């Protein structure tokens, strides 16, 4: 399969592919070379997923006028 570029990947696609790779590896039907390639891809996907999860702080914004976006202050209730 052609491997999509990491940065275009959505989290759910990355997680789904990671789980597929784990399944393939656990079936143990690949050659060692294939397994190493899968493993490498899996490690990259796991890192990508973790990065996505750890990404930045929450950002809360409000569209004040058409196209103009400002941060939104939220008062704690």
């Amino acid at each position, binding site marked *: 399969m052609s491997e999509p570029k990491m940065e275009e990947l959505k989290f759910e696609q990355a997680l789904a592919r*990671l789980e597929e790779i*784990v399944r393939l590896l656990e079936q143990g039907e*690949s050659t060692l070379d294939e397994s190493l390639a899968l493993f490498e891809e899996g490690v990259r996907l796991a890192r990508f997923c973790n990065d996505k999860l*750890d990404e930045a702080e929450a950002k809360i*914004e409000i569209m004040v006028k058409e196209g103009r976006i400002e941060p939104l202050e939220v008062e704690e209730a």
Partner: protein
Amino acid sequence: MQPITVSELTKRISSALSVPAFQSLAVEGEISNFVHHASGHMYFSLKDAHSRVKAVMFRSRNRLLNFLPKNGETVIAVGSVGVYEPSGEYQLYVEMLFPKGTGDLHLAFEKLKAKLEAEGLFDAARKRPLPLLPRKVGVITSPSGAALRDIIRVLTRRFPAVQILVFPALVQGEGAPESLIKALQLAQDTDCDVLIMGRGGGSFEELNAFNDEQLARAIANSAIPVVSAVGHETDFTIADFVADLRAPTPSAAAELVVPLQEELQRAVTSAAKRLVGALRRQISAERRFLTQLASSAALQRPDYRVNQLRQRLDDLFTNLTLHNTHKLALRRSQLGNLAGRLETLSPLQTLARGYAICSDAEGHVLRSADQVQPGDAVNVTLYAGLLLCRVEGRKCP
């Protein structure tokens, strides 16, 4: 005239009422004699200045009422007319009941709902799945409402790194549907990948902005999945039916839209662990296989195979030499034979005895004087050397 039984009369009246004109109608009147029976059914009368009609609303229908009817209240009752045979009284079997005033709104709601449903706008097949992890959540609601605070609180609790973009909109009163549609359209040009549209609880009239036909169509046409979150659990609006997902409340919408961050982290961590484990197992399996190979006879005595090969090589070489020697002798005797035959055919011996060969300029051997003309060049080959001659004359036979 043949008399009929009371039962027969009642049956005839009952069947006379089973015509469309009496089967689906809306009646406006004031409630009186209202009784909510222990069985759950409601019995009352509807009256106006001149008339009164008995009415019953069974438990299965009145469970859905979001108000408690009171004596003196003017209502619109939707249902059919039938006969209560034991007492021979006709009465109104009420399916839906609305307070006068909102009654019109409710009727419009039912009509629009039926229309859009018939168009297929509510079909399950139209509903799009929500992203597992949205990059940005758009929230279309009143910027000052409690709904927005609830949504933000739940979103940030479940997923601390969530990105939220709020699209302010009027959620009730004049211009609210247009305002919601505008916000929905603005959201289309952003990188939000899911939208929550809603407001907190309110009366039917207050929620009515979400029963707008154009808004319903805008939701259906949204390229981004829309989660509706209007009012409370028991409130249903047209927006709820057409949205990709209906959340019972704004907080619930937030729950449905983002996953728990720790849950996803656990999923990723567990997949990574299994990944490493699976590879490790394969490597140790390959290593065992390698050890097995290393202990095999072939690898234990590495010269074994080489010696085998060396011997084979010797054999081949011997064969090759024998073969060639034989072939050479054969060729040599063939050559001697041919040389002998060549000797007897050669003109050299004849030339040595003083004969000559005469040929024309093209090298054709001449056997007759008429093959040339006087003046032609001819070559005369002697035993030793060649004479280049010209014909002076000839004597043809």
